[in-house]
């Protein structure tokens, strides 16, 4: 028999206490535990990607093909039919890729615990990893598609250094907000399976309430012309995704009609707004994480 090799594992907390009380989330300790299990997260993301493309000849190329086809189709459609923005394909993709990260995370995150019932019932590991892995998978797709999109932008269009710094802020806001909401739906869906259907509908409404296919400047001019227009406009801006998508578009889209399309705010205002969303999403994440953590002890039983 071979002797054991390798360092002792540092997987499970040194002393674990399990009581009837729903455990209280201690952020620092939990983050350390999650860090210890990072290998599981990476492996689950790898697994999902592998399973997603198993049996397909092109594999991940399908992910890359997606934005290429979008660019081609919408450039053509915009030329023929006319569209909300001058370089419509660029405008659309700037927002759509970010939206897809959000909506794909939510849709697949909602079923992440349920569809891994086999693991949850038999193996002990921090359950957060399941929804986080779905965000991870969406993130890989987002990264690949963004690469294609950036390559296209760089060739056809160029980047503007004066606004591109908004991109990382918008990205952090998007990621925090996505993780927060995904944690919540994945834990609630274990008990209320209705959520799967509800999310599909909610995302459809949310998509059209968010300036992705249309320019937010037009929403502004339409709303502001109405009585109580300023109030309506503020209500519209309560949607954090409007800010986040607006941030991505402002960072990436700078055609000469940008002023007629993009969010009618200065980059400073936009950055401040995104900063608020980052903070709020952080708080939201803490809240939904607590909900998830409290419920996760009973997942094995509920499934």
């Amino acid at each position, binding site marked *: 028999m071979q002797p054991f090799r390798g360092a002792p594992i*540092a*997987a499970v907390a040194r002393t674990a206490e*399990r009581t009837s009380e729903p455990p209280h989330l201690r952020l620092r300790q939990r983050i350390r535990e999650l860090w210890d299990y990072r290998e*599981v997260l990476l492996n689950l993301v790898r697994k999902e990607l592998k*399973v997603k493309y198993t049996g397909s000849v092109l594999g991940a190329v399908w992910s890359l093909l997606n934005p290429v086809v979008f660019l081609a189709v919408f450039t053509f459609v915009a030329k023929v039919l006319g569209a909300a923005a001058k370089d419509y394909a660029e405008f659309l993709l700037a927002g759509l890729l970010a939206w897809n990260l959000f909506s794909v995370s939510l849709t697949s995150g909602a079923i992440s615990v349920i569809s891994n019932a086999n693991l949850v019932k038999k*193996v002990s590991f921090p359950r957060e990893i399941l929804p986080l892995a779905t965000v991870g998978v969406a993130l890989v797709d987002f990264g690949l598609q963004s690469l294609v999109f950036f390559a296209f932008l760089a060739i056809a269009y160029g980047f503007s250094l004066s606004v591109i710094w908004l991109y990382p802020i918008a990205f952090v806001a998007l990621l925090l907000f996505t993780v927060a909401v995904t944690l919540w739906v994945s834990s609630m869906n274990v008990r*209320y399976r209705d959520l799967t259907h509800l999310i599909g509908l909610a995302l459809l409404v949310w998509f059209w309430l968010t300036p992705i296919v249309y320019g937010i400047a037009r929403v502004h001019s339409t709303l502001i012309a109405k009585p109580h227009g300023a109030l309506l406009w503020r209500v519209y801006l309560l949607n954090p995704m409007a800010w986040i998508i607006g941030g991505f578009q402002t960072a990436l889209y700078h055609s000469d009609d940008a002023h007629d399309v993009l969010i009618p705010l200065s980059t400073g205002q936009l950055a401040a707004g995104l900063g608020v969303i980052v903070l709020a999403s952080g708080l939201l994440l803490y809240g939904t994480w607590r909900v998830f953590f409290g419920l996760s002890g009973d997942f094995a039983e509920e499934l």
Partner: protein
Amino acid sequence: MTAAIEVQDLSKRFRIYREKPTSLKQRLLAGRTRAEDFWALRDVSFEVAEGEFLALIGHNGSGKSTLLKVIAGILRPTQGLVRQRGRMAGLLELGAGFHPELTGRENVYLNASFLGLSRRETDGVYDDIVAFAELGDFMETAVKFYSSGMLVRLGFACAVHVDPEVILIDEVLAVGDEAFQGRCLDRVRTFQKEGRTIVLVTHALDMARQLSDRAVMLDHGLVHAIGSPDEVVREMRLTILRHDLEFAREGGTREVEILGGSLLRGLDPLAGALAPGDCVTLQVDLKANEPVDDPVVSFALHDAANNYVFGSDTAQQGVGLGWLDGKRRVRFQLGPVPFTGGQYWVTVGVHSRDNQRVYHVQDQRYSFEVRQIEGRKDQAYVPVTAEVEDL
């Protein structure tokens, strides 16, 4: 010595729903769904010391697996608490972390990460895992094409190559072929020698007795017995016996009835276990409800695994009962028993000489135990005398 696992007044309740309310509407109307409480564990308390090997035994549904899942942190206690120190690996079901679409190699990495190994550490033990599982040619095949035996081997190979301080094993040593089982047992013994804490759930009572330092027997969620494996296993066997008595398999036309059988040492009822080479007497009392001519009394011995071991009858021994009307007693004197360690079950029956009519059979109603000689692995006992002479 410090405790690796402390279980204090642990209770676990399951809600059994007729139909589990999984939608919002059903939840809102929850008043109408009837939930019944089922206590899988009640006030269970015990400790497992560091380096100790604890066997958990009990009937099906006694709460063993639930207890293991609570210790592993998969289920939350309803009352009480579990405190557990040290890095822990649970092997609650073989191949639980496997994904059918992934290859053997990918699954090894996935499974090892669940058990707490990093990628680099898994690289280090990967070859050992493959060698242990004997699946060298199949590691690049998706495990959906594996046979269940192959899955079992790969799962166990992963589990025994991680380096935990506390290991929880649920009834997985019972699978696989005999050679592989042997290697798994070797591995468990190595773990034991290395001072790791082991909790094993098992139905194999002899294995529990041979391997563990201490045993806990659960019955309907309660700790029924706790202590030395020998005592707890004996208690377990007694409850099996009692249980069997309630459903004793008996049959026959009852022209002749067996009033009772007993095992004697000399003329006294047998007390305690026999040593290999002891003699034992099987005594059977009969009563004829109707006069019958020349019935035959027979007996058979089965081991704990229900394998037939030996049997004989009065006809074979050249004894006749003649015209039976009233009561009669038959004694079989068994010479030095050639058995070693284990429980033996006795079936007695009375039937017509041509075996066409079975008057009464008591199937494995009586039992006796033979001790294993300390430190020996004998399969049978043969009386031996040794002589020395000069040439």
